[in-house]
């Protein structure tokens, strides 16, 4: 416990003026009055055994997110299976097949169904098993629990009971919702990171009740006893009502004593807490909603097709039945050879309606081959294999964390190819929540030579290219090259590079005294605590925000090492140059005016060793600039210019200022401040603020800092590519607006030329009578204004950005306003929502999903993104980080944001096309097959006889045609992955749904209809009466049926061979193997003389194979069936090619190698017209510079301008 010694001496609470102010006991309200329903929970602290029986027996800390358990699996999974209409139909058919009504043998109905359902259930079981393993990982985490007599021991989380006293150490997660009793800090404060709950990155301060503070040692819990009475489990994260009865005194509890499950202890060595809510009672679990089962768009559309086919089925069944009734009633009495009527009334001319009814059932079963029974299971097999490929993709494997991409559900693979809008979380997803000190501006001089990516690229472009088209090509190389020589900062949080300041060289700079002051402000004005790493002797800092940490690291690198904090002093070890001995200087901290989001600044008042009182202040530039004295504005202009540059580069900026104080003036102020600080009542905060404000005036500007909120690797490039693929990106973050905007800049979602439409709720409105209404009106007006602005814009390059905060969003998401809001948002190139709650994230997602009707993808890493991940059509979790909630709720998990590009542009594109083609083909093949049965009925008096042998039909879907279509679904590639990435525009084929629109679907169905007609009538006409052998024999029903079936097998397999554009040996094996299998099966089946159908005995070897006409017919029918499709694709490829056709050809003829110039040009053109992203930004910058250039040409003499520009 390094640094514990220092820490123990500091009462952290006294560091804070505002945020952690502790009301004194005198002003404490009495205990909460908690009675009645909703407040029934009793917790006997340290007496968990009391909670072992009812009514105090609460839920265990075991969590389970599985869908089934061992007992419920069978009934529930079977129920799930038969919720699919098609499966239910096949179940009914299977049951009916046991009766006389059935046209088929019962085994041929039951076997495929059992196979299909069994396979689907096996898949369900496997997925649930994986979830179970995930849960158990969490459940088996160890926590230190009081086991009696002041001894603590480890116990798995699932064994923790209500009332247990738990000791949680630094960087551990809380195993349940706890009441904080004491911490390693003397005053019971602890820091909690709630990123998993609400996504906020700043640490929250929690504090224990004063009465429980003495319980800060294992041994003290020996005799600890207390009772908590509190509210029942509920999902509200920010409220808690309860009372603690300890030593017969009742103390009120509030949310600041509650440590929530899944948040993490930070900057605190350990805490003790009592378990209040366990397992599913805990707030975070109460917040979690059942993950909805998602279905892809294609699957929903497929359902419609299934319904169409069902209608077709019912329709032709009715036609058959009517035909049957007519035939049976009128003709059948004359058919003496049938000996009507029969005893089962199946063929009774006297009761045609009864027979007709039976026949309807028969017909519904007979034509069941229109509905592809194996469709679902084939799709499932294909998707599992596709998911396997996603999981195994080496390009989506993160070497650092060792995590591959995981497709957690395989239902949504093809949906990845149709995404329109991406909703992304910021922290942990786009950024790594690490700040790097990058640049600074001191005394009007800019330091720090690291250029941002945008600057680099734009500069390079201006040098290299004059023509637009030319220069665009270079961009990609620029982007990739900067990526390659990515700097690896030796020191975390510090990527500053400028020899003028480093190694004490700053002394030689002109304004050395200001620079000195700048460094002092960095090293003194903060609330961090140094911690000594005993092994290396280095100091690390525990700061509230990562910004502050990076300042301290920077100060240390500059030679101002903050090394010690006591209750009232800060010690800085100053080293002016590398060869000098460091000098320790002690600053007495007189006051600390800490940072709040409202004040946007913090100040310290210190007395240095010479007795001089200084106010050191850092804060948002706008705030600081307002508070400068007349003399202090010396560097304002230069600094503003630098700040703008930094802002444009997406850096987080703060301005630093100071003020010298006179002793007398200070003591006068301090008195007032003290008064305010010790005042009682509601206006204390207001008073404090006013007094602080008085002090923080007439400052002198020193400089500004620029900190980079470090983006994750490859994020700007990835966003750029996604934008080029035509995707929209919305950022939803829980962070402050400023931070969000900064990130917007650094990801190139925002750029300087962009018109930002900021929509915020104004506070002035509170004065009017109906504040709510006027706020709403105000927001509506802002939205309408924004829309007007967008509409009136003439410049095609103009881009708009919408920035909205959470509070405003609550109004904007209300029913009466949300559509206006959405319309505006859709018109804007980028949308950033800041300070949004998890719930709002989900609401925004729903709004986009339902309002635009397009596919949304949500990506996030924390528990606060769970709602959004579940709500979106596709949820993607970032799995690199520690928290698992987002991953658990997600459909796909990837290790880094940058893999999203490959996931969507490559896998999504492929999967979409594969599944779309596969489904189309499935319907084609089943229509082609199913309708021949129907036609035959017309020639068989609608009696329900099938021309095929039962076993042929059984095998048709399951064996003879399934493998080729699966190979299509798994292996088909229109273009290879590299080309997919190079031509992001190809992705648009998915969102535009080019491969599964109704035109295409009906085209395939029409093709199926045509094929069925050709197959049936050609065969029938060729075979019906004439001898088909030289030996004079005529064909019987089995021979005709077998010949027809052979034609079907050839036709559909040749069809799929025409459909495929990517042949590996697997496809060849499956397609031609299927045809071969048919002959092998036929020969084999023909030899099975007894048991099976007798008419097919030696059908191939004796009857059909020696007949040349059989082979000739097969050839004729196969050609005739595939001719229209062949003509269609030839026509399409020759005269109306799609993008992938051309690219295939280019690749095939190696034109990309022969003509590199063309290849590059097309690649750059293939980008979607986009207004966000890196490329767009560079384009905009070039446009701007060019525009300027032109203007200046026209007004001034040319030569000077060029010099100026370059």
């Amino acid at each position, binding site marked *: 416990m390094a640094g514990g010694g220092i820490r123990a001496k500091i009462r952290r609470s006294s560091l804070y003026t505002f945020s952690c102010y502790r009301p004194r006991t005198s002003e404490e309200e009495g205990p909460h009055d908690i009675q009645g329903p909703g407040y029934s929970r009793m917790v006997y602290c340290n007496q968990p055994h009391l909670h072992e029986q009812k009514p105090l027996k609460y839920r265990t800390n075991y969590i389970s997110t599985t869908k089934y358990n061992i007992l419920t699996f069978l009934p529930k999974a079977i129920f799930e299976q038969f919720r699919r209409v098609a499966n239910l139909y096949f179940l009914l058919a299977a049951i009916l097949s046991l009766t006389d009504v059935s046209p088929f043998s019962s085994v041929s109905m039951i076997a495929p169904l059992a196979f299909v359902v069994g396979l689907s259930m096996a898949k369900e079981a496997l997925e649930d098993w994986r979830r179970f393993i995930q849960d158990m990982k969490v459940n088996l985490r160890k926590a230190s629990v009081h086991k009696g007599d002041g001894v603590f021991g480890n116990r798995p989380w699932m064994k923790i009971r209500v009332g247990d006293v738990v000791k949680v150490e630094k960087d551990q997660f809380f195993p349940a919702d706890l009441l904080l009793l004491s911490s390693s800090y003397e005053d019971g404060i602890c820091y909690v990171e709630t990123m998993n709950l609400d996504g906020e990155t700043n640490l929250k301060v929690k504090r224990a009740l004063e009465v429980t503070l003495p319980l800060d040692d294992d041994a003290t819990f020996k005799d600890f006893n207390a009772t908590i009475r509190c509210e029942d489990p509920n999902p509200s994260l920010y409220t808690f009502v309860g009372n603690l009865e300890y030593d017969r005194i009742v103390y009120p509890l509030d949310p600041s004593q509650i440590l929530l499950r899944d948040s993490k202890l930070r900057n605190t060595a350990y805490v003790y807490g009592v378990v209040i809510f366990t397992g599913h009672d805990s707030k975070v679990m109460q917040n979690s909603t059942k993950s909805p089962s998602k279905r892809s768009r294609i699957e929903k559309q497929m359902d419609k097709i299934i319904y169409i086919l069902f209608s077709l089925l019912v329709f032709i069944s009715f036609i058959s039945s009517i035909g049957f009734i007519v035939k049976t009633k009128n003709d059948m009495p004359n058919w003496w050879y049938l000996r009507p009527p029969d005893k089962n009334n199946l063929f009774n001319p006297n009761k045609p309606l009864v027979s007709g009814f039976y026949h309807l059932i028969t017909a519904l079963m007979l034509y069941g081959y229109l509905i592809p029974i194996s469709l679902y299971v084939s799709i499932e097999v294909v998707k599992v294999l596709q998911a396997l490929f996603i999981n195994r993709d080496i390009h989506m494997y993160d070497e650092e964390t060792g995590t591959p991409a995981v497709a957690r559900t395989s239902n949504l693979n093809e949906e990845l190819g149709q995404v329109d809008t991406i909703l992304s979380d910021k922290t942990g997803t786009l950024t790594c929540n690490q700040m790097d000190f990058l640049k600074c501006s001191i005394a009007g001089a800019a330091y720090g030579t690291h250029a941002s990516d945008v600057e680099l690229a734009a500069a390079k472009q201006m040098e290299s290219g004059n023509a637009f088209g030319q220069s665009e090509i270079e961009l990609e190389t620029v982007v990739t090259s900067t990526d390659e020589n990515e700097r690896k900062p030796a020191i975390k949080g510090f990527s500053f590079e400028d020899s003028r300041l480093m190694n004490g060289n700053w002394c030689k700079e002109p304004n050395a005294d200001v620079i000195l002051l700048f460094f002092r402000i960095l090293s003194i004005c903060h609330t961090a605590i140094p911690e000594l790493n005993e092994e290396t002797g280095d100091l690390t800092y525990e700061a509230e925000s990562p910004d502050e940490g990076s300042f301290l690291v920077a100060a240390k690198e500059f030679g101002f090492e903050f090394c010690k904090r006591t209750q009232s002093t800060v010690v800085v070890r100053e080293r002016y140059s590398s060869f000098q001995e460091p000098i320790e200087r002690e600053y007495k901290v007189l006051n600390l005016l800490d940072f709040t989001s409202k004040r946007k600044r913090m100040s310290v008042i210190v007395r240095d060793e010479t007795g001089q009182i200084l106010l050191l202040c850092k804060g948002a530039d706008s705030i600081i600039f307002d508070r400068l004295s007349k003399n202090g504005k010396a560097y304002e202009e230069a600094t503003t210019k630098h700040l703008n540059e930094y802002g444009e580069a997406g850096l987080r900026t703060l301005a630093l200022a100071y003020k010298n104080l006179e002793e007398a003036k200070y003591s006068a102020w301090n008195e007032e401040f003290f008064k305010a600080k010790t005042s009682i009542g509601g206006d204390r905060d207001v008073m404090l603020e006013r007094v602080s404000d008085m002090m923080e005036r007439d400052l002198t500007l020193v400089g500004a800092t620029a900190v980079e909120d470090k983006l994750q690797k490859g994020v700007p490039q990835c966003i750029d590519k996604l934008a080029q693929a035509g995707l929209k990106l919305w950022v939803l973050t829980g962070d402050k607006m400023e931070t969000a905007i900064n990130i917007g800049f650094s990801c190139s979602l925002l750029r300087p030329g962009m018109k930002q439409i900021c929509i915020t709720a104004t506070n002035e409105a509170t004065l009017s009578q109906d504040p709510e209404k006027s706020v709403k009106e105000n927001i509506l007006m802002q939205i309408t204004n924004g829309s007007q602005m967008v509409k009136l814009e003439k410049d095609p390059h103009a881009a708009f950005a919408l920035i909205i905060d959470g509070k405003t969003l609550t109004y904007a998401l209300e029913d009466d306003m949300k559509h206006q809001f959405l319309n505006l948002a859709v018109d804007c190139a980028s949308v950033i929502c800041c300070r949004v709650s998890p719930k709002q994230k989900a609401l925004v997602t729903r709004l986009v999903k339902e309002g635009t009707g397009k596919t949304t993808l949500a990506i996030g890493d924390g528990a606060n993104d769970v709602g959004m991940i579940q709500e979106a059509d596709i949820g993607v979790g970032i799995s690199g980080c520690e928290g698992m909630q987002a991953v658990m709720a997600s459909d796909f998990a990837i290790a880094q944001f940058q893999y999203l590009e490959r996931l969507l542009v490559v896998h999504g594109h492929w999967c979409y096309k594969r599944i779309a083609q596969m489904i189309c083909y499935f319907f084609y093949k089943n229509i082609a097959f199913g309708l021949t049965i129907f036609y035959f009925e017309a*020639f068989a008096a609608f009696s329900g006889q099938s021309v095929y042998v039962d076993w042929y039909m059984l095998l048709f879907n399951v064996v003879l045609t399934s493998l080729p279509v699966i190979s299509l679904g798994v292996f088909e590639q229109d273009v290879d992955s590299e080309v997919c990435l190079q031509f992001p525009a190809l992705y648009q084929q998915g969102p535009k749904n080019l491969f599964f629109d109704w035109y295409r679907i009906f085209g395939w169905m029409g093709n199926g209809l045509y094929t069925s007609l050709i197959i049936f009538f050609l065969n029938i006409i060729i075979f019906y009466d*004439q001898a088909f052998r030289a030996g004079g024999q005529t064909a019987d029903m089995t021979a005709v049926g077998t010949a027809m079936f052979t034609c079907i097998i050839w036709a559909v397999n040749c069809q799929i061979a025409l459909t495929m554009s990517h042949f590996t040996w697997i496809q060849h094996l499956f397609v031609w193997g299927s045809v071969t299998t048919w002959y092998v099966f036929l020969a084999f089946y023909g030899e099975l003389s007894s048991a099976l159908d007798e008419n097919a005995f030696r059908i191939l070897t004796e009857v059909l194979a020696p007949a040349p006409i059989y082979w000739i017919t097969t050839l004729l029918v196969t050609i005739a069936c595939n001719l229209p499709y062949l003509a269609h694709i030839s026509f399409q490829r020759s005269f109306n090619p799609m993008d992938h056709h051309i690219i295939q050809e280019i690749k095939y003829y190696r034109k990309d190698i022969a003509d590199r110039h063309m290849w590059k040009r097309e690649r750059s053109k293939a980008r979607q017209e986009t207004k966000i992203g890196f490329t767009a930004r560079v384009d905009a910058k070039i446009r701007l510079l060019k525009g300027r250039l032109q203007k200046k040409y026209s007004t001034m003499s040319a030569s000077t301008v060029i010099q100026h520009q370059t």
Partner: protein
Amino acid sequence: MNSNSPSTSAGGPGSADSTAPRRNSKRPKYSRFTQQELPACKPILTPKWVVEIIDRYETDCVPLDSRNDKVGFIQSPQDKTCHRNLTVPKRMKRPIYVYYQLDNFYQNHRRYVKSRSDQQLRNPGDEGDTSACEPEDTAHGMPIVPCGLIAWSLFNDTYNFTRNDQLVTINKTGISWKSDRDHKFGKNVYPRNFQNNTLVGGAHLVANKSLSEQEDLIVWMRTAALPTFRKLYGKIEVDLQAGDVINVELQNNYNTYSFDGKKKLVLSTTSWLGGKNDFLGIAYLVVGGLCFFLSLVFTIIYLVKPRKLGDPSYLSWNRNPGGH
């Protein structure tokens, strides 16, 4: 070789004896291959016509006075012999196949197709297996062999051919599939109790002939796919010359009058493709013509407006640069 071999053999056998082994060692070995005597077929591509004679007789064979009650006529026990004359239009080479063709007869009706017992046909022990044969399953409490509607309704018109008052024999063996005779219809299964019910359907079977020899039944039991079908009746194994008049004496027994079914007698020769099948040829011509037409169209369009393969100007973003 040619010059000396006859002379030496004629000159002296003694000298031949001494020289024979030496000389014979050089003699090429005989094999069919080296002597180019491999069995071969020598196709002469002459057009072979399939000659077909079709005679529809179901109306003509009903006496004029019974024509308004054909069903009554066919069900009556009176003599139903009928004489038909067929003229051979072209020379018909043997074998000439004799078919009967029925029309509007639903051999493919589900009730009909199912009404048989293959177990019983094959195996004498399974004669009680008549569950599928209802209502022709039993007669007088005993199982019928062969049972079922198919066997019961066996076609029973018979034909006798004479040419110039000379009997033309009809060979009725080998008209069924060999596998049927060998494996599906038992050699030791004999008809029993057949056509013994009150309602007599079609033909009777010869009681002491095993089912495997009753080829008419075997042919009939292969149900046809369509309501119009032809079945082999027998083979004429003499050539018929053009202009020959063949007198057919037929017994018009089978009732197709109830359902207005036609009956036809067909004599036909076959080619390697089987019987007369114009449709196949036409279909090939049509499909081939379509292929040709399409290729022509594509060629023309290609010549008029060619597209270079892999031409990037066809990429969507180059074709309509405005909107993607």
